């Protein structure tokens, strides 16, 4: 057999393994819960428990679910993000390979910043209207705790 094919098999099987494990957890941990809007579902992972607990105490518990703030508005993006987070979170959860305390990733942070505007565009209109060029105004800079009060 050629070295390359061996490599190929090796890589392949590693990948497969990864997907396997990730997929396993995805199901085991009701990864499908990513596809629902039920916030409690996110807490199927104890790793999410703290954030769930925080959300329960937040001003938003009765008005915004996890997904409202952590997934983009449009359908496609929404489910892609869920799949993305769902799969990688599942994988990370299984391998235990993630920062502790958790830190939101730039991409998800952007999604969340935009999420604010899904509901607060009107009230924020004036302060957004004078934005310096393309640079967006960060809401989270001041409202970091709206979803998860300390």
């Amino acid at each position, binding site marked *: 057999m050629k070295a390359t094919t061996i490599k190929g098999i090796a890589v392949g099987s590693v990948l497969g393994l990864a997907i396997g494990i990730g997929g396993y957890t995805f199901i085991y941990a009701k990864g499908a819960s990513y596809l629902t809007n039920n916030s409690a579902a996110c807490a199927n992972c104890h790793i999410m428990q703290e954030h769930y607990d925080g959300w329960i105490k937040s001003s938003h518990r009765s008005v915004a679910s996890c997904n409202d703030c952590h997934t983009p508005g449009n359908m496609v993006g929404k489910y892609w993000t869920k799949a993305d987070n769902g799969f990688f979170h599942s994988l990370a959860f299984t391998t235990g390979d993630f920062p502790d305390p958790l830190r939101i990733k730039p991409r998800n942070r952007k999604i969340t910043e935009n999420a604010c505007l899904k509901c607060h565009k*009107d*009230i*924020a*209109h*004036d*302060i957004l*209207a*004078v*934005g*310096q*060029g393309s*640079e967006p*105004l960060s809401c989270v*800079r*001041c*409202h*970091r*705790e709206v979803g998860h*009060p*300390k």
Partner: protein
Amino acid sequence: NIFERKQEAKNPFYRVVELDEYTSDPAIWGKNFPLQYDDYKKTVDQVRTRYGGSEAFPRTPTDADPRSIVAQSRLEEDPRLKTMWSGYAFAKDFREERGHAYMLDDQTYTERQVAAQQPGACLHCHASVYVPYKKLGEGDLMKGWEKMNKMPFQEARQLVDHPVACIDCHDAETMQLRVTRPGFIEGIRALKASQGVKDFDVNKHATRQEMRTYACAQCHVEYYFKGQEKRLVYPWAKGIKVDEILAYYDEVKHKDWTHAETGAPALKAQHPEFELWSQGVHARSGVACADCHMPYKREGAHKISDHHVRSPLLNINRACQTCHKWPEEELRARVRTNQDRTYKMRNLAMDALIDLIVDIKKARDTGKAEADLAKAQDFQRKAQFYLDFIEAENSMGFHAPQEAVRILGESIDFSRKGQMSLRKMEPPATVSRAVN
């Protein structure tokens, strides 16, 4: 009702009148932006906090000074200031600063105008000069500025008629923040250059968040007038820390005045809010002046910046509590703790400086040659500038608590070393008498 609110929010910038590069009267801008204008007018309010705000003192108007109300005199609160600034106009009149609405009158009528002939350069930070500069420079801001700088104050004063106004901070078309002050445009460029950033153009390169600080840093900074041109210069070419600013003044051999009692070539620091803030943890965290002094407020369906610029301690709820979930009283106490510590050190540093001034004066009276006083005088120059850097800064240390106290501690060391340079160990015999 919600529906109306939403309608209102749809077109916040609904324009009743057209605004252009030459509209300086805020009342006209107010027609388009009544919410901001109403708050802007509130800067006439005078409320005192322990170390900030201001107190309204009634006075009988005179022809020379028609003001019927002024802020408390800092010189009366602490007479040591007169000794500290002896021979300089500040020893004649220095008051607690108050709201923006008063900036033009307070500058026009301060006795410092009588004590010395002041240049048109003063107006850079006390009036709406954007339009006047452009007119004077036939469309060229910088040219107009250079012209006004060297005029006598009274002559230049005729060319302006508003305190800082909308057009000084905003682009009339987009309403975006814009730096209009030549002094800052050149100052920040020099500062960035010292940090390795070439040709910094603040209106092109600054982020929105930075502009929320720069809008204020146009005026709330240390400055001096350079040469006969009376060019307004912000001394940041070597950096923005007190040590770097002093190094700059030493290099260009600048002095603001000669101390009347000691002959020391002294420097007066003035409102280095931007400089001190830049050394604090809020600056590191990207918290801008406007975040605390113009916090967002809700007005109906609008969320706007509170244009009633004032002490955040009069507005803790909006100024601090979005970021700090502590009770209002606790936040006030934290500021107070930082300020009281700074105030205690400020007083120790002031005592030390006065001791030095008294010593140098004594030495002179006993006929000591000026040459032999040079060392002590230089220590006075240093001690005075460091102390004044915090004394003149208006947050009583809050903007950078540790740095403020560090600067005062060094001031004490300078003053005492100055005294030491005039004293020597006593011969045993005379000791007991001399100890004091």
